[in-house]
């Protein structure tokens, strides 16, 4: 199977093509069959490939299928590679992707454009697999842009809704800014190293000296440019604004693309380029700071949102910030670990939220829910598990990965900067626990705040419940790879990714024991932080439901600022969008296009018409006026000959 790795991405592409071309005329069950079997087979193929790869024991399996671009000494091929990082990504993408496909059967059952939805979703799977399997930056960029395209198509799936099509455009345009940086980064790497192939590039780069802090050399600039692309795709400050709006898409899309897979592509790229990033302390610090700031910033916005999907969207932005924080402090393993567990529990959260929305007949506002826990027990139970996982309560998956990140942050060198990062990360953990339990309490507990006679709350069909259960199991157990590490055993996940990121420097036995003790203390602190968040949410939303409103009223300026998301959208509108719109409307459209280009073209035509119109009057048909012209012409010629002999000579010369 490893020899035929291309089958893994090809299957979803086939599914997409078949559904896209034939699906319109098919009944839904054929569309379902095509979509589910293509992704399911892709998952099985991926599993088989992984088994072969792990059995072969090689660190990297690389295969060149054909040359795509060859120009001078530049070569970009359709080359796929598998190493252990790819293995993790590939299994997450195909596995979670498949579960979400199954879920979508139930969720999208009554939608028009059912075939279109699955065609897009399969297309997304194809591009995402290309992204994670690519063996060079160019092919990776194909996948990178492809997932952006599918994301655009799926956000705007209900394109008749203005807000949905606007959100799609916003996502695409904001990503374009990041992609610009990404491309510049690629160009710089090619200029410096003469190749964009991962293996060659990283081998070459590995032998270069590292750049110290504050030094802006090739590595720093290239890494910052690549990171700019990552901030766009992975919704980090300052380009995160598209992700909350992307919630306009159907919920399975939010779960698959805007939580579990596509938005983690930025983290994947940083981890994949870890050789480059490790060469630049400056770039690493920037990554860590941006990630940490985003984690905290997005969490604060999540505190007050009332739309259930918006809370989850800001939570995603925040969790992605954690992953970048991990990468920035050099703990790539922890970042990828969190990527994986996050894929499980955040996909679950979104799917469960979708189930809630389904049960409520389309309602997304939490203030209009309440007391759903007794009516939709499956959804409630699974969502509660996911909440425990994201809040970082042991022994759920999120605890291990988040703990690993915070520990790595604390350990990565001394200094105020690092300590600030740690404290901010910890605060974000408190906020995470708070807003997640707020979501749970507002949605599932308390008294119903909807009209019980009008809304018929019902549990979702099994096609939707099944994936919830599977993801719930993964959300519980997904972090147990790291469990033995707590009892001084090996960290299986870190060991698994060891061949990719290089083994950590061996620590002395005594220091290791001390480090272990520190880790236990820090875990305790992290759990305490989560429990504080839980307790505050419990006090505000269960024990004394009025208190939340009182608190909001007493801190009105802060509350409104958060509710309006720090006015970032308004700021961008004023600072970027409106000036650009003005420039485009007045300078490019009205001045350049209408006045300049159209003006020239039309002006020539009008000029010809005007001259013709003027000359037309000389053709009066009146013979004597012709005579006047003849005479006038003769007089002019004579005058020239008499008074300006040189000119007449030139004129005669031309005639001759």
């Amino acid at each position, binding site marked *: 199977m490893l020899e035929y790795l291309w089958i893994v991405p090809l299957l979803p592409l086939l599914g997409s093509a078949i559904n896209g071309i034939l699906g319109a005329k098919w009944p839904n069950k054929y569309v379902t069959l095509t979509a589910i079997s293509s992704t399911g087979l892709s998952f099985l193929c991926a599993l088989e490939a992984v088994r072969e790869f792990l059995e072969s024991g090689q660190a990297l399996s690389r295969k060149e299928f054909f040359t795509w671009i060859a120009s001078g000494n530049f070569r970009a091929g359709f080359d796929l590679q598998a190493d252990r990082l790819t293995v993790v990504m590939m299994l997450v993408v195909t596995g979670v992707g498949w579960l979400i496909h199954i879920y979508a059967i139930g969720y999208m059952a009554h939608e028009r454009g059912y075939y279109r939805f699955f065609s897009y979703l399969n297309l997304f799977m194809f591009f995402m697999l290309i992204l994670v399997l690519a063996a060079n930056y160019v092919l990776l960029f194909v996948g990178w842009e492809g997932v952006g395209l599918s994301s655009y198509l799926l956000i705007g799936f209900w394109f008749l809704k203005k807000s949905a099509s606007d959100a799609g455009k916003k996502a695409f345009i904001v990503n374009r800014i990041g992609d610009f940086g990404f491309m510049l980064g690629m160009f710089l790497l090619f200029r410096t190293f003469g190749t964009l192939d991962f293996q060659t590039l990283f081998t070459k780069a590995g032998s270069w000296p590292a750049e110290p802090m504050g030094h802006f050399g090739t590595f720093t600039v290239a890494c910052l440019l690549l990171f700019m692309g990552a901030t766009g795709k992975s919704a980090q400050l300052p380009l995160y604004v598209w992700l909350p709006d992307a919630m306009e898409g159907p919920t399975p899309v939010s779960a698959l693309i805007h939580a579990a897979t596509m938005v983690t592509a930025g983290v994947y790229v940083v981890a994949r380029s870890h050789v480059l990033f490790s060469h630049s302390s400056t770039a690493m610090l920037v990554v860590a700071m941006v990630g940490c700031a985003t984690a905290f910033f997005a969490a604060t916005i999540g505190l007050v949102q009332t739309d259930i999907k918006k809370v989850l969207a800001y939570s995603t932005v925040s969790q992605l910030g954690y992953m970048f924080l991990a990468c920035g402090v050099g703990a790539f393993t922890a970042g990828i670990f969190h990527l994986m567990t996050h894929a499980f529990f955040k996909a679950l959260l979104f799917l469960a939220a979708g189930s809630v929305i389904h049960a409520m007949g389309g309602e997304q506002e939490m203030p209009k829910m309440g007391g759903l826990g007794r009516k939709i027990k499956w959804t409630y139970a699974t969502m509660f598990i996911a909440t425990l996982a994201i809040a970082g309560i042991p022994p759920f998956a999120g605890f291990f990965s988040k703990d690993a990140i915070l520990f790595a942050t604390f350990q990565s060198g001394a200094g105020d900067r690092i300590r600030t990062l740690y404290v901010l990360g910890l605060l974000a953990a408190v906020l995470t626990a708070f807003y997640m339990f707020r979501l749970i309490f507002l949605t599932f507990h308390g008294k119903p705040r909807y009209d019980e006679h009008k809304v018929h709350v019902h549990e979702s069909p099994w096609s939707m419940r099944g994936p919830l259960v599977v993801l719930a199991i993964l959300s519980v157990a997904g972090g147990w790879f790291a469990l033995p590490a707590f009892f001084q055993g090996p960290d299986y996940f870190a060991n698994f990714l060891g061949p990719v990121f290089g083994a950590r420097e061996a620590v002395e036995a005594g220091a290791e024991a001390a480090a272990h003790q520190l880790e236990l203390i820090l875990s305790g602190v992290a759990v305490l932080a989560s429990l504080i968040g839980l307790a505050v949410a419990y006090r505000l939303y269960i024990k004394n439901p009025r208190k939340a409103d009182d608190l909001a009223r007493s801190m009105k300026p802060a509350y409104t600022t958060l509710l309006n998301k720090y006015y970032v959208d308004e700021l961008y509108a004023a600072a970027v969008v409106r000036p650009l719109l003005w420039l485009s409307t007045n300078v490019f459209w009205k001045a350049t296009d209408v006045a300049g280009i159209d003006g020239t073209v039309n002006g020539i035509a009008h000029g010809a018409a005007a001259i013709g119109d003027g000359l037309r009057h000389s053709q009066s048909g*009146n*013979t004597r006026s012709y005579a006047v012209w003849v005479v006038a012409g003769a007089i002019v010629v004579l005058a020239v000959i008499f008074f300006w002999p040189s000119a007449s000579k030139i004129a005669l010369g031309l005639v001759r």
Partner: protein
Amino acid sequence: MVPTNYYIILSAILFGLGVFAFIFKRNIITIFMSIELMLNAVNLAFVAFSQALGKLDGQVFVLFVIVVAAAEAVVGLGIIILIARNRQTLNVERVDLLKL
């Protein structure tokens, strides 16, 4: 012997009168006559130069011009008669459609 200048000046005056009449007169017959006047002004110039240069080329041209003028008079007068019949007028300002 009369200097050539005088002939040339007379010829220019006659030609100018012809042009003047051609432009400002309305009667087709008069315009026709002014054309004849211009032709003959040119004839005079030809003859004068022929005399001054002692060559016969100019006089040959004059004979040609006279012949052409005669032919032109035939055609022109025919057209004028047709116009007079169709329009009941000889005013050129009423004849501006370039057709009968």
